[in-house]
């Protein structure tokens, strides 16, 4: 590590947990009447049992276009503690094939205040050195503490009924390289942040007014925003904020969801052209409640 983890960030995590009068919730990111769907650019605020294959296409940037086929498997160890294992393949043209570094994230959360549809989860992510191949070789670990928070607006008065299906989720993280420099090049520490704006028609159907159409009552229009900026140990002139705006839609069923989003770079440093990402998310806690979908150790749970 090039620097010690900031104690202030760890303290902030603890303060959030202590300050809010949370009660345990249950997978998968359900808090009160609110279902926070799995989002594609940032994480949802829950600890889950889910399996999500994802396909991404990025149009040519500096002459290189990219196609990714990835998966993410979320497994609960205890009801509110889980691990997320992510990996996948990348094809770049020109450039070739590479298997991405293995990524693991230990999560603790599902903290939920159901009356206010407020939910939070914290995690610690490691992208492991030596597990990537081809174009995706990574010679050092990356360490990322992360916090995810979701807030639904169902607690608004019924005079503002049309706003009650809305929700926002936030993510804040900082990525620390395990090596200060490689082959004479500085490895920067990056601050990452993002949020999503959601309008849940399933929530509208259940809490505001009945929707007769069997398709529309499963739809959640969504837009995600992600940003990243080098904040430490960056090469001169490279501390530029990059990011994407990702408008899309989620189809939320009882045991699975499908989501698709456009990927629009916010500036030239973030890319050129509009990409696309799509993912199917299988809710294993609902599909396989007695095997893969339950915590490995269920202390006093179901």
């Amino acid at each position: 590590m090039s620097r010690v983890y900031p104690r202030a960030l760890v303290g902030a995590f603890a303060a959030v947990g202590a300050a809010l009068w949370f009660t345990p919730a249950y997978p998968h990111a359900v808090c009160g009447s609110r279902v926070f769907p799995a989002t594609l650019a940032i994480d949802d605020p829950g600890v889950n049992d889910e399996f999500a294959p994802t396909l991404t296409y990025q149009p040519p940037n500096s002459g290189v276009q990219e196609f990714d086929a990835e998966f993410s498997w979320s497994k609960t160890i205890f009801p509110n503690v889980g691990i997320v294992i992510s990996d996948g393949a990348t094809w770049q043209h020109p450039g070739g094939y590479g298997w991405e570094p293995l990524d693991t994230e230990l999560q603790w959360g599902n903290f939920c205040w159901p009356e206010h549809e407020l939910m939070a989860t914290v995690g610690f992510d490691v992208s492991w050195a030596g597990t990537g191949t081809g174009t995706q070789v990574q010679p050092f670990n990356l360490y990322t503490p992360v916090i995810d928070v979701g807030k639904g607006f169902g607690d608004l008065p019924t005079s503002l009924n049309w706003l009650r299906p809305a929700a926002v989720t936030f993510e804040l993280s900082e990525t620390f390289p395990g090596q200060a420099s490689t082959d004479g090049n500085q490895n920067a520490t990056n601050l990452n942040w993002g949020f999503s704006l959601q309008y849940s028609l399933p929530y509208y159907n259940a809490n505001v007014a009945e929707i007769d159409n069997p398709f529309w009552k499963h739809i959640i229009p969504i837009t995600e925003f992600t940003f990243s900026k080098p904040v430490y140990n960056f090469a001169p002139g490279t501390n530029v904020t990059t990011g994407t705006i990702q408008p899309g839609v989620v189809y939320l069923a009882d045991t699975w969801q499908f989501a698709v989003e456009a990927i629009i770079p916010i500036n030239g440093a973030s890319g050129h052209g509009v990409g696309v990402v799509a993912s199917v998310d299988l809710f294993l806690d609902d599909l396989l409640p007695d095997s893969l979908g339950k915590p490995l150790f269920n202390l006093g749970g179901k």
Partner: protein
Amino acid sequence: MHSRSLLRLGVSLAFALSADAVLAHALLQKAVPAVGGTVSSPSEIRIEFSEGVEPRFSGIALTSAGGAAQPVGKSAVETGDNKVLVTKIGKKLPPGVYTVNWHAVSVDTHHTQGSFSFTVQP
């Protein structure tokens, strides 16, 4: 090797998904009176959930627009269909807007809760 592992995982998952019972959170699918609907004074509130619920840990409360609790009976699941929670209303409701507050524990112990309004017409 990674690709083969992924394939094996996918095949195992496909078999497992086709073989097991499906359980989910108890989320409101439909209600009578309808969510946001306008009705004559109803005699009961019926909520159909996406999943069976435990009546001992599930319930329905009713309040008027001013927040006054309205008399309702003990909630029970419909005979032969534990996805439907029913509560009798103890009196004829005068015209106005009413709020239903429900909480449910599904048969696989997931907790959910929510609220909606309906209007009783003159």
